[in-house]
């Protein structure tokens, strides 16, 4: 197992991307766009969820209090998803796909589960998929409660010396390290 870049080259490059984001637009963030995408699907199924409203600051509101909060900021983005933050995440997906393709893609065995999972929990994909789904649920629920995720709080937050970024990182590692120590005892 080896990363394409050393920690020195990779860290400098990643740092340069974070800086470019702040220099040119605003700090990087991802997890809000899960909410926007959910909102787009929800509004497609039931169009009364997000509506125009002259009273709301953004011009939009929602029957869902979370989408309606902060003057309907999220509601507006659900109605008009072609904005910086949403396209940013779409481009993230494209950039990662391009990089993976250029380096020859992911090995077949790795596609269903990482080697360290296989070493500890066996080679049954369904177990890995159930765990990944539940983990995804908990991660995004937590990220929305925290108001940001690894990129928004930990990277962008701490680089701006935001107090919230340090609080978030403390919580994430306080839970993440013991969990990984207990679950993943065998290396390979």
């Amino acid at each position: 197992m080896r990363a394409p870049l050393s920690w020195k080259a990779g860290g400098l490059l990643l740092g340069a991307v974070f800086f470019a984001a702040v220099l040119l637009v605003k700090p990087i963030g991802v997890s809000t766009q899960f909410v926007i995408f959910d909102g787009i699907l929800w509004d497609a199924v039931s169009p009364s969820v997000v509506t125009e409203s002259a009273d709301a600051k953004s011009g939009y509101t929602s029957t869902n209090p979370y989408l309606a909060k902060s003057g309907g900021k999220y509601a507006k983005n659900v109605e008009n998803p072609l904005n910086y933050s949403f396209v940013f995440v779409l481009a993230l997906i494209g950039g990662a796909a391009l990089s993976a393709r250029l380096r020859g893609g992911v090995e077949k065995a790795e596609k269903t589960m990482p080697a360290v999972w296989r070493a500890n929990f066996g080679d049954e994909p369904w177990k890995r998929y159930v765990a990944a789904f539940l983990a995804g649920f908990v991660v995004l629920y937590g990220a929305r409660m925290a108001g940001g995720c690894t990129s928004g709080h930990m990277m962008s937050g701490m680089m701006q010396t935001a107090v919230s970024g340090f609080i978030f990182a403390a919580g994430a590692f306080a839970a993440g390290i013991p969990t990984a120590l207990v679950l993943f005892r065998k290396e390979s």
Partner: protein
Amino acid sequence: MSSILLAIVIGGAFGFTLDRVGATNPNFIIRMLNLTNLHLMRTILLAIGTAALLTFGGLLTGLVDPGHLDVKDAYMGVFVGGILLGLGFAVAGYCPGTGLAAAASGRFDAMVFVLGGLAGAFGYMLTYEDVKATGLLDHILGGKATLGTIAGTEYPALLGMSGELIGVVIGIAFIAIAWFLPDRILGGKDSRVAAE
């Protein structure tokens, strides 16, 4: 229109770089958290340190517009949410950004993680008012606070010192920690990590 172009360039570079540093490989994230391979930890610390140095250096020289900063609120839910994220992060080896990037690289478990994430975000949308009623979302430590006072911003400061200076010091500290961290903390007999 130019903001969409910037989104494509910066977002694309971010996704590309996440894959290049190994963040789309859950083996690295899990082994960072069980302390057997700190490659990614060193990468992340160096990245935050570099970005902080450039940003606060840029604020001091006037290159960076202070209006571009975006500091998030501090409240108890940030810590609780961080704990929840940390749990899932360790189980899956993915966070929201790297999960999307890993799914794009062709990992099926990451695609399932993203579906779980969409369900989790929806779950939060439905329970937001209940969470709010607990008081977990009430501001602490001044809300949108930074460690020091940053000129040109309205953010309250935790310490009565120059925020730019603290930013530069934090940047250097993160780089130093990245530099001095060992490649692994637990199970040091395994030389394969360094040699591989």
